[in-house]
């Protein structure tokens, strides 16, 4: 089983966002960067599938600046075999451009399965993995919370409003991971030591032009602080009254 996993370096979920002086990006001062949460599920699933198959390879691909090497090392410490950084100044704003770059790299890799997170918790595009599948002309299933691979075929379950869709597909395929797919392992000390010796290739690439331009990044409007209606059950009538007459939602 030869598996590729696409990963991204993103600010941790506890990050308090501040806008940088350029008005288009976040101020990275004091921000902790991590392996994208959903990509952790993708890495874990790849490792599990390789272990089940008894042989194979898990290769990790990232598109980003030099610092993304650290993100790849995290995946290697979890147990992936090798890493490739497609080196650019910064990840592109246009998901199609990112998908093009990754698809070009993965095209001749001979992978049975390409795993990605369903979205990156920075840009929330929810697009790159599915786009890679389309660009490679192979099957894809997105936001998958249960995956079974056997005999060159896959079965995936994905949550839809009010239910679960069951999808069958042939390999090779792209699957993007939803939370709940598995419990990602923590890199053990031994894994972290071994990761330092695993191959990590850095390939500078040139991105396509894309079709969108980032105009500005702003903070959302602050919510007006509301009011405390009271303490304990005695405040319930005041709440009902406020919902009925002020907010008009009851």
């Amino acid at each position, binding site marked *: 089983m030869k598996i590729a996993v696409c990963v991204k370096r993103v600010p941790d979920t506890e990050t308090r966002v501040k806008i940088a002086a350029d008005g288009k990006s976040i101020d990275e001062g004091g921000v902790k960067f991590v392996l994208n949460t959903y990509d952790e599920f993708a890495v874990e699933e790849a490792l599990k599938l390789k272990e089940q198959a008894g042989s194979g390879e898990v290769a990790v691909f990232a598109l980003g600046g030099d610092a993304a090497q650290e993100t790849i090392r995290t995946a290697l410490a979890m147990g992936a075999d090798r890493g490739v950084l497609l080196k650019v100044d910064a990840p592109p704003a246009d998901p199609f451009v990112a998908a093009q770059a990754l698809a070009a790299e993965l095209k001749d890799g001979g992978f049975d399965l390409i795993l990605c997170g369903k979205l990156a918790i920075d840009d929330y595009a929810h697009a790159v993995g599915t786009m890679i599948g389309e660009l490679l002309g192979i099957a894809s299933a997105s936001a998958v919370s249960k995956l079974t691979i056997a005999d060159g075929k896959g079965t995936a379950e*994905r949550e839809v409003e009010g239910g679960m869709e069951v999808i069958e*597909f042939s390999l090779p395929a792209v699957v993007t991971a939803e939370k*709940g797919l598995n419990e990602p392992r923590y890199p053990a000390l031994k894994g972290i030591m071994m990761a330092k010796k695993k191959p990590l290739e850095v390939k500078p690439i040139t991105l396509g032009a*894309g079709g969108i331009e*980032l105009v500005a990044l702003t903070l959302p409007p602050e919510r007006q602080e509301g009011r405390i209606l009271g303490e*304990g059950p005695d405040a*319930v009538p005041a709440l009902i009254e406020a919902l009925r007459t002020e907010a008009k939602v009851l």
Partner: protein
Amino acid sequence: MANVLAVLEQRDGSVRRVSHEALTAGRALADALGGELHAVLVGPSGISADGLGAWGADKVFVAAGDTVAQYQPAPYAAAAVARAQAGDYAAVLLGATALGKDLGPRIAARLAAPILSDVTAIAHDGGIVVHRPVYAGKAIQQLKVTGKTCVITIRPNNFTPAENAHAGAVETVPVPDEAPRARTVAVKESDGAALDVAEAPIVISGGRGLKEPEHFKLIEDLAAAFGNAAVGASRAVVDAGWRPHAEQVGQTGKTVSPNLYFAIGISGAIQHLAGMRTAKVIVAINKDKDAPIFKVADYGIVGDLFEVMPPLIDAVKNARGN
């Protein structure tokens, strides 16, 4: 003169509300561009596109057949792309639902076009400019489309459907027979809870303050008292295995914009606030008067939720007649 194409979503043959929202957003954009609004509807044999003109569609292209009664990625994408390539469309719009989040990127990739996901505002200012929340709503990105076309998925519950009568002429088109590499073989309905937390007009969320998974009954009872509410959960209780991930609200769960949001026994971690701060009205019940949730709540009650909830459930039942 560029037109706009809306890709509609149906379930069991009925066009979903989010598609009325997409038509409404599409109509406004088409008017700004001086063009027409067209729509593509793929669904079961006999599906009706009558009445879609009321939501602003000039023309509706219908591909109906039993092989596409439910969402199938390949033929749905092929039908949308065939239409998108047959005309001059500045944008293809669809809802950012489970279907739209899967179908949108497929259409964009096949058109070699950018995708703008989960968009909350669309304007035209020498080009299409959209607003979309990033970092789970901690910041808003403004993007300008510089290419010839684009795919835009709109956040559900954000564009209010508005009637705006246009011709709504219906034209039948063939169902694409692209050989599927992946096929939806079943849709398992989840038991009971019909309302999805991302789509419900009212969301009642519970957190660690409930102390035990069984106490979520209080959350479910308040949701039932409203009648049209969904149950949500904080990351802490989902990670603890009390509730399914489908109910999680926050940065690694769902981002919701209901008319009314209750945060019960939820302190208000940054990643949770990111997921619900666009709710129209927020109510918080927490025993800690300094909990961050009170900074974003419109109405707060400080107190023991086990004492507050029973009379609240009764009062809502009375008000709603449930």
